[in-house]
């Protein structure tokens, strides 16, 4: 569908940190700043997490605990497809009567794409359909946790010392009583009142401070330093003689999907839980208002807040392009669509001679000088076959046709270059009624919102010259 509409032919200029030229369908409009915003000049935030295969929403606390992985779904370690649980019947002896056997269900994981199964890796079949599969644990977890605790202790000691120095420096006039001795005492018996008051936002240090109160030697965590080895394992002899079994060797991509283990052999590739995806909300950087906020439900594609540019700014589309010849004037038919419900007045201007925005145009353009009036978008008019004449007096040289909220108009283009694509640019000025502005108490009969005039720089790429 995107190629049918060819949105890349018409670009709107966004004045953010950098000047970006983007089709209107990819832009957002901040109602409060009254400016166009592109994806580069808004701040992105993670809104909600969900699993792409079971479409289950996951609250962010749970996501953090599960390391952003779904609890029920697995990924095939070979081809990254989603695994499905299959069941077989196996005979198993009844618990009360060992002689009779009954069929019990056993479940295993299988990939529909590459035919990998959990039995290939040696994982036993489980008797419950879900929840039985465990990921293997990293063997170094204990050592790493001990290291972290040890360093935490050192860090905390450094912080205490730093604070002590800070305290000592900050109070050159402190009374003799609060001398080095007192500081030692304070340190030894836990955080004194003064230090505690200063660090009100640090409950964690307070926790450690409590433990040190009992005596500094009690919680001293030491770790044994790592031992270096004299000899390492040599390359196995059979590397030179054994032919390589390619299906057994894991590719680098498969290996790196499991950073903790990185197995070299495919028989050690265990499946991992599926990684979640997230929904994103966008926020204008200047006024901090939300521009786009999706629904919470993963199955819904609607938005709670959707300030997209196509629903506020009139859109220009190219309808037909005649043969363009060098230095010959041709008429191009464009359409202008009004997305809002009230009448919009649009005027077009050519760019000035030394316009800094106008860097790409390769042709001169003559736009209609009169103001174009667009009627409001009326949802019911779509179904109304007998459209009433709208009573607009249109100049037939300028306006080709008019249909509910859309008009077609001509512009005249004179290509200036002999070769290359023809690009033209002009300014589009329209009035915008800000319905988001707070409604001041007005008397009857006054307009409830003021119209402000917005100007946008539009660039059209009309294709190559006719040969």
């Amino acid at each position, binding site marked *: 569908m995107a190629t049918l509409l060819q949105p890349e032919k018409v670009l709107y200029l966004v004045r953010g940190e950098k000047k970006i030229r983007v089709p209107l369908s990819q832009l957002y409009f901040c109602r409060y700043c009254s400016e166009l915003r592109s994806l580069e000049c808004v701040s992105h935030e993670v809104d909600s997490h969900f699993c792409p295969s079971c479409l289950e929403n996951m609250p962010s606390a749970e996501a953090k605990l599960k390391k952003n992985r779904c609890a029920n779904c697995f990924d095939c370690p070979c081809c990254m497809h989603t695994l499905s649980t299959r069941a077989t019947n196996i005979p198993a002896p009844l618990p009360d009567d060992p002689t009779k056997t009954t069929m019990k269900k056993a479940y295993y994981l299988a990939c529909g794409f590459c035919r990998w199964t959990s039995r290939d890796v040696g994982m036993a079949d489980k008797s419950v359909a879900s929840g039985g599969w465990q990921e293997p644990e990293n063997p170094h977890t204990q050592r790493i946790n001990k290291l*972290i605790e*040890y360093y935490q202790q050192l860090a905390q000691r450094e912080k205490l010392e730093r604070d002590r120095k800070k305290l000592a420096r900050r109070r050159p006039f402190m009374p003799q009583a609060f001398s080095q001795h007192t500081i030692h005492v304070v340190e030894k018996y836990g955080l004194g009142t003064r230090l505690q008051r200063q660090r009100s936002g640090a409950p*964690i240090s307070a926790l450690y401070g409590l433990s040190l109160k009992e005596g500094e030697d009690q919680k001293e965590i030491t770790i044994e330093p790592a031992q270096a080895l004299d000899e390492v394992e040599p390359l196995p002899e059979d590397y030179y003689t054994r032919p390589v079994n390619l299906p057994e060797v894991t590719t680098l991509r498969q290996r790196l999907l499991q950073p903790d283990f990185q197995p070299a052999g495919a028989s050690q590739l265990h499946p991992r839980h599926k990684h979640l995806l997230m929904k994103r909300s966008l926020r204008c950087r200047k006024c901090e208002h939300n521009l786009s906020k999706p629904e919470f439900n993963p199955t819904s594609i609607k938005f709670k807040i959707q300030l997209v540019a196509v629903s506020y700014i009139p859109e220009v589309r190219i309808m037909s392009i005649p043969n363009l010849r060098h230095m010959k004037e041709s008429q191009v038919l464009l359409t202008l669509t009004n997305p809002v419900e009230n009448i919009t007045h649009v005027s077009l201007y050519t760019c000035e001679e030394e316009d800094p925005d106008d860097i790409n145009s390769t042709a001169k353009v003559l736009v209609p000088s009169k103001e174009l009036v667009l009627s409001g978008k009326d949802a019911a008019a779509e179904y109304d076959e007998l459209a009433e004449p709208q009573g607009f007096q249109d100049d037939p040289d300028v306006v080709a046709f008019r249909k509910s909220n859309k008009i077609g108009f001509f512009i005249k283009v004179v290509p200036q270059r002999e070769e290359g694509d023809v690009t033209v640019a002009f300014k589009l000025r329209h009035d915008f009624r800000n319905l988001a502005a707070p409604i001041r108490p007005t008397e009857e009969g006054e307009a409830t919102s003021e119209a402000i005039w917005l100007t946008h720089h539009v660039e059209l790429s009309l294709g190559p010259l006719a040969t």
Partner: protein
Amino acid sequence: MPLFEGLGSGGEKTAVVVDLGAAYTKCGFAGETGPRFIIPSEIKRAGSPEAVRVVQYNINTEELYSILKEFVHLLYFRHLLVNPRDRRVVIVESVLCPSHFRETLSRVFFKHFEVPSVLFAPSHLMSVMTLGIQSALVMDCGYTETLVLPESLERVPILSAWEALPMGGKAIHRDLQRGMKIQEARFNLDGSAERPAPPPDVEYPLDGQKILHVKGAIRDSVAEMLFEQDNEEKSIATLLLDTLVKCPIDTRKVLSENLVIIGGTSMLPGFLHRLLSEIRSLVEKPKYRDALATKSFRIHSPPAKPNCTAWLGGAIFGALQDILGSRSVSRDYYSETGRIPDWCCLSTPLPDSVYEAGKMPPPLMKRAFSTEK
């Protein structure tokens, strides 16, 4: 799990730890035992069929800025799934990273993603943190280059004794592509001078249609390039020995018995064994025999795969919330001064110079932890 992980309200959120390598990027959270993702350091752009490398040092700032911005966007919103504004960032980097790259990267983080603070941690120092020892000689065999840096007592890098060689995975790739000069394998397990029979050939299927025939001889000799000595008689093994020669004499024994090898290229099967054997044989050569008295070499095995060791060190450091804040460059400092402190630039004042009266080392080389009582 440490006790306070359960206290959700107190303390700040865990920091994000990123190791931007030339070939692969490791990203994850502080306090965890391994990176969440190891992804190739490249982005796909709509225009070109090939992926664009992220870690490039020769392109202009604007292009680098947009590439880095896209890549970091992917990291946050496809892999880590967190808000950039909430968490501090620890970037594990090589000490030889050009300032221009660092500054562009920090501009991306501060200006575009508005992170609260950034800490640039040297990868060699971080690897030593995973072992719990005081000093070590760290060799990072990465994609573009191999860099050796010793860390002595109190974990201060001896910056004057660094050695580097542009030999890494990239050189091996280049050789394979050029369809190579086959070197003779000079070294054997049993010490004999003969070359063993080459390993069997491999037929490697590509794309479902083509098959790549890899001759056996290439399989065993292409990695030889890492160990052959070039015109300056430098190879990976001599790097280590040269570094030892440059270090102060009293540290040499300690360093040689605490070797740490990190980096993806060192995960080649048999690499460590070959490296040790090369070192042991080179030490007998006249060049080193007189200079180095120590003959014992020992290798550590860190609690992580060699390509994640530096990341793990960064994660351990990032879990120390007490001091992470004070050692990072905060957003306020960056918006005031507009630059990040660099070890090679003396003009940046220390942010907390009040406390360091007397000793003024450049910020990155601060003592990792003071153990004074």
